C-alpha cells in the first residue's frame, strides 16, 4: 500500500507525506494547500485519529470561501471522511446536511451513505420535505434546491424502508437522473424487479450520460437481469466492465462463492465480461 500510494501521489504531480498533509490541513494561510491535503488524506485512506479529528474540524471551516459563498474545504473534508470509514464523523456530517452550500450537503449525503450509519436516515429524509413539488431548480444555479440524487441513493443504501412512500413520487420527477436515483433506492428497499427494469430501460436512452448513470446504478444494486442489456448498450467497455463487476460480485456474495462454487448465472456474466476486455 505504502509504495502504491506514493507512486500514485507522484503521478498526480504532488508528492506529500502524511505529516505534511496534516500540517497543510491545519494551517490557514494557504487555502489551496488545505483543499488539496483534505483530498489527499481521503484518497490515500489515511484514517489515523489525528487525521479524523482534523477533517472533522475542517467541516466547520469559515476561512476558505468560494466567490458564491460556498465552502470548498468543507466539501473536500466531507468527501474524505466518507472514504475513511470512521463513524465519529457521522454527527458532524449530519450537521453539514443543513449547510447553506449545496455541494457541502451533497458531499455529506454521499459520505453518510458510505459510512452506513442508520442515524443518518432521519436527517436525510428531512431533505425530501415538500416532496417533488419542492424539488425545483435554484434560479441561476445548475442544481435543484437539494442534492436529491445523493439523498435518494443514500436512503436506499442505508436500508431506509420507512422512507419508501416519500421516495416513490420521485420516480415521476422531471429530471431523468432523479428518476434513476429513486428507482435505484426503491429496488434496494423493496427488491421489486419493476424498479430494476426501469433502470434497464434507461440503457436505451439516446443520451450517453443517462445510459452511463443507469449502468452504474444497475451495477451498484447488483441487478442480475441487467447483465446482458449492459453488455449490449452503446457505451465504453471500461464502464460496462465496472457495472458487470458490481452485478457479478453481488451475485457471488448471495450464492456463497467460493464455497458454493460458480452458478450458471455467474458463468454467463463472466462470459460477457471476457468479451469486453
Amino acid at each position: 500500500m505504502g509504495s502504491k500510494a506514493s507512486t500514485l501521489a507522484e503521478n498526480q504531480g504532488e508528492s506529500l507525506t502524511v505529516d505534511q498533509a496534516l500540517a497543510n490541513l491545519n494551517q490557514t494561510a494557504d487555502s489551496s494547500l488545505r483543499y488539496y491535503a483534505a483530498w489527499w488524506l481521503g484518497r490515500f485512506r489515511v484514517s489515523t485519529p489525528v487525521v479524523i479529528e482534523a477533517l472533522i474540524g475542517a467541516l466547520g471551516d469559515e476561512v476558505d470561501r468560494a466567490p458564491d459563498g460556498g465552502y470548498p474545504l468543507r466539501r473536500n473534508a466531507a468527501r474524505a471522511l466518507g472514504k475513511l470509514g470512521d463513524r465519529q464523523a457521522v454527527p458532524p456530517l449530519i450537521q453539514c446536511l443543513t449547510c447553506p452550500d449545496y455541494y457541502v450537503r451533497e458531499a455529506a449525503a454521499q459520505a453518510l451513505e458510505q459510512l452506513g450509519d442508520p442515524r443518518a436516515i432521519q436527517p436525510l429524509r428531512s431533505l425530501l420535505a415538500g416532496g417533488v413539488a419542492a424539488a425545483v431548480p435554484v434560479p441561476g444555479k445548475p442544481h435543484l434546491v437539494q442534492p436529491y440524487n445523493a439523498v435518494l441513493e443514500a436512503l436506499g443504501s442505508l436500508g431506509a424502508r420507512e422512507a419508501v412512500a416519500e421516495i416513490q413520487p420521485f420516480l415521476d420527477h422531471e429530471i431523468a437522473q432523479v428518476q434513476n436515483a429513486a428507482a435505484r433506492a426503491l429496488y434496494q428497499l423493496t427488491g421489486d424487479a419493476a424498479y430494476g427494469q426501469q433502470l434497464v430501460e434507461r440503457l436505451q436512452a439516446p443520451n450517453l450520460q443517462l445510459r452511463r448513470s443507469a449502468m452504474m446504478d444497475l451495477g451498484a444494486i447488483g441487478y442480475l437481469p441487467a447483465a446482458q442489456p449492459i453488455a449490449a448498450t452503446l457505451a465504453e467497455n471500461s464502464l460496462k466492465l465496472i457495472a458487470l463487476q458490481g452485478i457479478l460480485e453481488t451475485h457471488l456474495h448471495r450464492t456463497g462463492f467460493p464455497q458454493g462454487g460458480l452458478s450458471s448465472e455467474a458463468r454467463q456474466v463472466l462470459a460477457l465480461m471476457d468479451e469486453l476486455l
Partner: protein
Amino acid sequence: MLGTGIVNLAELIEAVETADSKAAMVMAVRHLAAAQHPEAIPTLIAVLGYNNPGAAVAAVDGLVTLGRPAVPALLDQLDGYNYGARAWAIRALALIGDPLALPVLLETAAGDFALSVRRAAVRGLGNLNWEWLAADQVLPAQSQALQVLRQSTQDPEWVVRYAAVVGLETLALARLKSTNRATVEAIAHHLQAMLTAEETPAVQARAWLAFEVLRQL
C-alpha cells in the same frame, strides 16, 4: 444500390474525409469498414486519431475484420500516434492476434499508464495466433507472453488482473498443442494460488473458472 455491385472505394474514403459531423463520421467509417477492402486501411488508421470514439470503434472493427494485412501499417505508425490513437491501435492489434505485435503488447501490458490500454494489451497476449509464427519461434515467444501475463496478475487494477487470468487460460489451451505439459501445469498452479491470494471477488471467480477448465483437461 449500385447496379454493378462494385463498391466505389474512393467515394467511401471521400465520405470519411469530408464528414461534417461526429455522427456522419461514424456512419461513413462504418460504410468504409463494411467494404472490407485493404486499400481502406490507411483511412481507417487515420480515423483512430480523430478523437471520435464512435468512429474509432467502427474503424477498429474494420481493421480487425481485415486482419493480418492491417498489422504492418498499424505497427509502422504506432510511434507517431497521439495517445488516444495509440490506445485504439493497441486494441486493434490485440484483437487481430498477429504475433508480430508481441513486442508492442508486452511493453504496453507491462508499462502503459492507462488501465484500459493495459487491459487490452494483456488480453491480446493471450489471444495471439501462435501458428502464424515460425515453429522454432513459438516457444520463446510464448515464454515472454507467459512472464508478462504472470506479472499482470499483480497489477493494481482489478480489470487488468482479470484480463491476465483470461490470457493465462487461453495461453495454457494453446500450449496443449505441444507435447510439453509443464507450462500448462505451471499456469494451473499460478491460478490456484490466486484463488486464495486474490482480493477482488470478480477476479477470484474468473481464476476459479480458468482453474476448473485447466483441471478438467
